[in-house]
């Protein structure tokens, strides 16, 4: 049974600067996927398109940084066998992340083209999702709040850029395959089956999501947003205080 060890430091399967960068790339990739899932649905908006653009740019920056770092490490002939095995494992992590990113970029191009926003009758799919994705994007960009400054025709303009970026990523992946000779199937994962049940959490980065991992996923029929409840309670409490104050004043004066 997993304990709620939310605030524990990351366990030592990976540490060091390489991991932080990889961790960041992993996080941004996950957020990007989350945003692409919202494309074409009722959650889609100009803001979402801008979020997608910013997130994927960040992802690409991280990808390039990771690649430079890891290629340098792998090219070094004087590393120990253990180190090399570790770097190869990180390399496989990195390539998997980039592959996922590439697929999502291609899909976002396709869906973005199919669902333009500036048309007289929008036909976004009514999926039941109506909230905004701004918090997810903020998490990806590691900021508190997202700022939106794009033009109104971002949904069409961005697609052209996206095409070029996809080509760039494709090229980068080809180069990676050529230059770095790592056999992915030879890498052994450190995590065993079921490892995700042990809640290890990476340090830093957005504490908002940290605590909730250990919670039991609330069932549909049970309760609602705990945050909202707290606000309600606060309001009611203040109200009661006010009423008590007024009554007291009246009692005193009458």
């Amino acid at each position, binding site marked *: 049974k997993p304990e709620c060890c939310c605030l524990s430091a990351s366990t030592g399967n990976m540490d060091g600067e390489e991991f932080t960068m990889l961790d960041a790339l992993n996080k941004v990739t996950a957020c990007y996927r989350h945003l692409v899932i919202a494309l074409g649905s009722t959650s889609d908006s100009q803001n979402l398109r801008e979020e997608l653009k910013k997130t994927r740019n960040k992802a690409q920056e991280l990808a390039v940084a990771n690649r430079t770092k890891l290629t340098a490490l792998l090219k070094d002939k004087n590393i120990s066998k253990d180190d090399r095995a570790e770097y190869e494992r990180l390399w496989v992590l990195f390539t998997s*992340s980039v592959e996922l990113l590439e697929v999502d970029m291609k899909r976002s191009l396709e869906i973005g083209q199919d669902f333009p926003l500036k048309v007289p009758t929008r036909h976004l799919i009514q999926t039941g999702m109506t909230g905004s994705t701004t918090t997810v994007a903020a998490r990806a960009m590691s900021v508190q709040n997202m700022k939106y400054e794009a033009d109104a025709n971002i949904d069409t303009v961005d697609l052209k850029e996206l095409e070029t970026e996809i080509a760039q990523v494709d090229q980068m992946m080809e180069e990676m395959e050529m230059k770095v000779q790592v056999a992915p199937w030879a890498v052994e994962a450190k995590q065993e089956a079921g490892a995700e049940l042990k809640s290890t959490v990476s340090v830093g980065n957005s504490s908002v999501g940290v605590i*909730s991992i250990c919670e039991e996923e609330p069932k549909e029929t049970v309760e609602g947003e705990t945050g909202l409840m707290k606000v309600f309670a606060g309001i009611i409490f203040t109200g009661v205080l006010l009423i008590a104050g007024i009554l007291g004043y009246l009692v005193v004066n009458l």
Partner: protein
Amino acid sequence: MTINTLSQDGVQRQQMPCLTKMERMIISMQDPDMGIKLRNQRLLITVIPHAMTGLDIVEWLIKKCSISDEEALHVGQLFVKYGYIYPLKEPRNLILKADDSSYRFQTPYYWMSTRWPASELDYAIYLAKKNIRKQGELIEYEKECYNALHKRINHTWDFVVMQAREQLRASKQRRKGDRIVLECQEQAYWLVNRPPVSPEHYKLTTLTKNTIAMISLARNRVKSSICLESYVKYCEQYQPHDPIMQGCLPSNPWITDDIMFWNMNSETVALPTKLRVERWSFSFMELLNDQMGRKEFLTYLEKEFSGTHTQINESIHNPYKQQFLAPGASRWVNIDSKTMEKTLEGLKRPHRFVLDDAQMHIYFLMKKDSYPRYLKSELYKNLLARAIVPQETKKSVFPFMRRQRHSSPSPALATQTAEDDGKAKYSNSNSGTASRL
């Protein structure tokens, strides 16, 4: 909506047309005026919009496509089966019920697509996420899939775990209603793309996959050196017979418009060409494939035997062979006792292939025995000696006496002919000078 994606591995994959049609219909269902009427789904505290009843869907289909009840239900079923619409109450039961059971639209990312088939990596991430959420309580078949995946893509398992955690964290950022929808969507997607199988069926499918794999490993392989040797031999043998490599005598009809070549090689000619007769010696099939060759072979067999084999030869192409094998039949046949028994068995309950064994036996008999003897026989040798070698048509010395070449009325060739004529004249004048010398 068939938009070509940028090529992946240089291959442009297209969405299947029926899926494109379904997508278009789904989009037309979203129309604010003419689309499907949507209601709210009330869970205890949360209200999630955009739910519809099965009845709504069927009615809309009837109205929109002017089809019958039954057909509308069937079409609606397809939408659910392919995952464009998913049920809310019983997610594992992918059926459309024309009553008040609720359904919802699937987001475009999770639409069925031939361009983006569901990947194992994604499935592994999904199962890992589910594992975290359910704290290890996965359903039986999901557990099996999970373990199988853990073995198969073990090298990226760290990535699977990391990504699963991060994706969960990302979805925690959304508000409650959206989170529920996200979960339902993803679950519906995987129920469509990785339908649950019963454990026995799962074991059976893995077993068959393994046996197929083992069989293909055990297949006989020929060394490429041996393969290539026989390939080279084949090429050498057939080279003189190839009109492109060797040129054909008297002349290539396509170039000179002279159809003598075809006339000389037709099926009913009196004397065959030498090349043709030589070709019969390459293999039995060559002999049989040539009408004239077959006739010659028959004549030979008639001379040699009392005619049984000849009849059988005909019977190879004749389905009505009953007369041959019944004991006391009008014509007897030389087949061994085992085949005879088997065939007689089969004749008791006749089917199309009852005489195939006998036919096979006779075919091999002829190939191994009669055919080599035919090649050594006087008949064949005489024919070979008599066969004609056509003369190459002489190109006339004077260029303007030569027959004009008729090129096909194609614009591409119109410019070519001028060039060709020029070249031909040049080569002709050369041969002309040579002959004079």
